[in-house]
């Protein structure tokens, strides 16, 4: 979900089209229109006209820029997508980009075009750079699958070559530096080399773009040359290239740039990319190129999914006004996405576009009418009953994070190295405080006790909730169990006080139990019992060990119990 910055006046210019008078748009109208692009206005500066827009659809990279947003709104207003000539007109001698052998296993694909006749403005340049960054970052998976370079066309002599060189074989002055360095040095020194060098890790030869004079264009996907690869306001001839690991993504990305520049008034000149081997699009690939395949859909499928009879004509109208190319035949529509989109995977994707194009508010909500019986899970019902009993016995319920620290869950309970101390721990720890799932309930109760020595006594606390107990017999390595933990803390807290509560619970659960002496480091020896019911240990009860209280900095005695509600619920 990218968030982008655009300027209102730029958007208004693009809504009108090149050479036309700006079409002003109010903020409320804009917010309404943003529904077409799944966008949300996150902020605005009325003085500068700056707008911050969050775009939700991660499958629609064409919308992550001012041009794309404007295009989708404009198409809807005009009822259909205008023609983009560069997709159909063929040049007899197109500019060429030759791909040298050896790039297959590294970064095989490239697409490029030239754009002339558009004089780059301040706002236009900001959008070019932002789009380049957002697409490479989020659609190109941090430049791994797709990265983009933009250059001053005038400085380049064709044909351009996409080459493979040794790290010290090529050198140029990269953007952001003022000395010549080799590709190998860029990987070691340049900030972008350090950030993205991992993509080329282990390669002894590196991708390199150069022109016919052997002048360096760039070191994809790391950095452009400063001489030809720095576009400035006022430039009116550009060269755009996209390199990457997935041909259709590479072409789509170039298509988006071509559409964006065309929408700003540039004339797009396709480039012929010549591979040393056959690709899925052939040995010679003209870019940009419309890769969309048309798809046949029964109108009934769409109507059924939407719950609304529309008819083929209405469906066609809605889709055309959303940029599709549509033909209808009886009860069928044949649809093709515009060339800057590739997100049609399933008929349901078309269904949503029909709904968005018509507007969600056009659809009257209908209540689902089929009867179903509601109910709680057995464990939830059981746990609710136990919670009510605990409340009746004067306990305050608490609720805690399930993620905690091994220090609290294990070490402060004196459980290090014991069976009781085994935990499900997190590998990618962000904070020690949230690095393990609780394996029992008492640390959650102690957490509150520690923070509450000013709250008047007695303290009677309980929590019923989930814990994760490591269990090698489970395929996920642990079992999620619902436990009840209860604790009493005050100056005279005593085993029998907790025992009475436990006894009462078991009476109302209609289960018998006995307490059996066990060893447990968290409790005082001789004042700890395993709670055994039906031959299975279902919990513990005891007076907390003074060392535990000391480590939690608790100044009064505490007595606690814990029982396995999951186990007991299964029997009820």
């Amino acid at each position: 979900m990218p968030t982008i910055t655009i300027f209102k006046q730029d958007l208004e210019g693009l809504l009108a089209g090149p050479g036309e008078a700006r079409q002003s748009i109010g903020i409320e109208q804009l917010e309404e229109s943003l529904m077409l692009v799944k966008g949300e206005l996150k902020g605005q500066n009325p003085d500068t006209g700056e707008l911050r827009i969050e775009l939700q659809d991660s499958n629609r990279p064409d919308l992550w820029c001012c041009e794309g947003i404007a295009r989708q709104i404009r198409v809807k207003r005009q009822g259909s997508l205008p023609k983009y000539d560069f997709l159909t007109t063929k040049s007899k001698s197109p500019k060429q980009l030759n791909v040298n052998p050896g790039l297959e296993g590294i970064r095989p694909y490239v697409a490029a075009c030239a754009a002339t006749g558009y004089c780059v403005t301040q706002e236009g340049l900001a959008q070019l750079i932002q789009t380049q960054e957002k697409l490479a970052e989020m659609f190109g998976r941090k430049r791994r699958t797709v990265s983009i370079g933009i250059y001053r066309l005038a400085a380049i002599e064709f044909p351009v070559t996409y080459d493979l060189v040794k790290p010290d074989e090529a050198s140029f002055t990269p953007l952001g530096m003022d000395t010549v360095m080799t590709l190998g040095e860029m990987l070691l020194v340049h900030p972008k080399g350090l950030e993205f060098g991992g993509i080329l890790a282990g390669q002894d030869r590196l991708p390199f773009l150069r022109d016919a004079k052997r002048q360096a264009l760039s070191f994809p996907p790391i950095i452009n040359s400063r001489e030809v690869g720095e576009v400035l306001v006022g430039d009116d001839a550009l060269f755009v290239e996209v390199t990457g690991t997935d041909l259709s993504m590479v072409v789509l990305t170039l298509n988006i740039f071509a559409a964006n520049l065309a929408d700003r008034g540039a004339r797009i000149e396709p480039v012929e990319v010549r591979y040393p081997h056959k690709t899925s699009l052939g040995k010679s690939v003209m870019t940009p190129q419309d890769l969309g395949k048309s798809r046949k859909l029964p109108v009934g499928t769409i109507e059924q999914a939407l719950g609304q009879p529309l008819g083929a004509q209405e469906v066609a109208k809605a889709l055309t006004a959303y940029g599709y190319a549509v033909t209808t035949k009886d009860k069928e529509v044949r649809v093709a996405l515009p060339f800057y989109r590739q997100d049609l995977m399933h008929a349901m994707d078309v269904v949503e576009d029909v709904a968005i194009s018509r507007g969600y508010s056009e659809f009257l909500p209908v209540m689902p009418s089929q009867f179903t019986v509601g109910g709680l899970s057995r464990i939830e019902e059981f746990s609710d009953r136990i919670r009510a009993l605990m409340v009746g016995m004067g306990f305050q319920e608490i609720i805690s994070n399930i993620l905690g620290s091994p220090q609290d869950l294990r070490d402060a309970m004196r459980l290090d190295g014991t069976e009781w101390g085994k935990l499900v721990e997190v590998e990618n720890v962000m904070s020690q405080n949230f690095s393990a799932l609780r394996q029992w309930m008492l640390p959650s109760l102690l957490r509150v006790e520690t923070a509450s020595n000013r709250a008047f006594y007695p303290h009677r606390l309980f929590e019923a909730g989930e814990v994760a107990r490591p269990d090698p017999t489970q395929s996920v390595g642990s079992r999620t169990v619902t436990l009840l933990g209860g604790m009493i803390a005050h100056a005279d807290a005593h085993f029998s006080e907790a025992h009475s509560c436990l006894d009462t619970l078991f009476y109302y659960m209609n289960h018998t139990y006995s307490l059996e002496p066990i060893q447990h480091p968290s409790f005082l020896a001789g004042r700890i019992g395993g709670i055994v019911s039906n031959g299975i240990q279902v919990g513990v009860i005891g007076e907390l060990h003074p060392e535990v209280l000391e480590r939690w900095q608790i100044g009064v005695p505490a007595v606690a119990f814990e029982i396995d509600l999951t186990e007991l619920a299964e029997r009820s």
Partner: protein
Amino acid sequence: MDISSLIDSLHPLEVKVLSTFGAKPSAVLQTEQLSQSTGLEPSQLSMAVEWLLAKSLLTVDAETVTPNVSLTKIGELYFEKYSPIERVLSATRDAAKTGKRLTIQDIQSREGLEPADVSGAIGRLKKEGALLIIQGGCVESTGRPSQTAETMRGLLQQLRGTTRDLKAFSNAQQQVIQDHSVKRGNAREPFRIDDRVARSLKLSPAGIEAAQQLSRQKTADEVSQLTPELLKDGSWRTKRFRKYTISLRAPRIAPGKRHPYREFLDTVKTKLVSMGFQEMRGSLVETEFWNMDALFMPQFHPARDIHDVYFVQEPTHAPSIDEPFLSRVTQAHQHGGDTGSTGWNYSFNAERACRLVLRSQGTAVSAHTLATQPDVPGKYFSIARCFRYDQVDATHATDFFQVEGIVLGDDINFRTLLGLLNLFAREVAQAKEVKFLPAYFPFTEPSVELHVRHPKLGWMELGGAGLFRPEVTLPLGVTVPVIAWRLGLDRMAMVALGIHDIRELFTDNLDLIRSTRGAV
């Protein structure tokens, strides 16, 4: 106030004092006498007397001031170790016996006395003719007795541990006391004279009436507590129950109580059940398969990397994923399988699918339900604890509840989806106005964001929903359309609980938990 309600409002201490007068209503009693006959502590008595004076039930008949003498700390010391005058006298007598001559310095250093004490004592002894000052600054005993020293010794003995009326002493004694009592600027003296005010008190006419009424009531015994015995033998009929001051603040108690956030979630749970939803439960630890693959999130999806999801340290992987789900989901991802989709067009990694993570979305619970032959028609919900790799702050929790679920049925379509969301808006948020916005979730198409006008918060996002993609439902064996929905209720909960920091939902502050009223 009439007399009987005045009597009702009397404090037990006041009643005690009045009752003492009761026998002889016209008596004039000294404070001391009252103290003896009531048996009250001096402080209690003086409180009761002040209250009764303020209510004009008691009047002061006369006030006498008696100077009382007692020993100071110094006096007690003098009793034990003798006073300077006694010590100077005895030192000079001892010297006379052995023929030595003592200087004033000798006495000072031998007796360890303050210079001021020594010179005071010598001055007085010289005046009384008990010693002489001779050449060279020496002192010499005359062998005569000292009146002061003898009187002092007698007084120290008499006053030890007690207090006496100054007037009870002879004139000579009084003189010594006056000369050696603590005064301003002279704290090092053995005696202290305090003026003791003794009041003679008598009842006012109203007091007499009150005392008489009280003595009549006395026959009907006053009790403070109704007891089982009183009920059993019926003797409560002859008792009078002391009235309480009911305007006093009640003592505080801590009741047993549900946690306010749980109470809120319980309400949501009850609402969902009332709308025909069945509860689902799941595991805190999940495989990436059920957490994401089954939901058609491609394995390269940005929300799947280590900056979004917590990975489990040990074991890292589940041994396997159940078939036929693994194969079908693999195909759906790669080329669509039998779902009518093109798929994501990448090579699915089955080992990645086994990677264990902490459940990052409640939808994982729904995915399991889809795979276990759910009811059709069917409605399900879960309130599932989820975990995200997120920096914790006032608006982000790393460990939170997600309320989510599914609806299956032949009649499920985009419009019934909107209908369901309308119902949620009304039932869960008490909202009458709703807005449906296009949204994006990897596993639904079409997708909707539900915005409602909350009575307190204004327009807010209440949840997201959509129709599960066929790439999700078909591989799990479900052939009817399915709504997937999720409600974001934490903001509503925070308003209901009056808190502004999401971390406080799980607060460790018992005072706060006890004092929060909750969602009602």
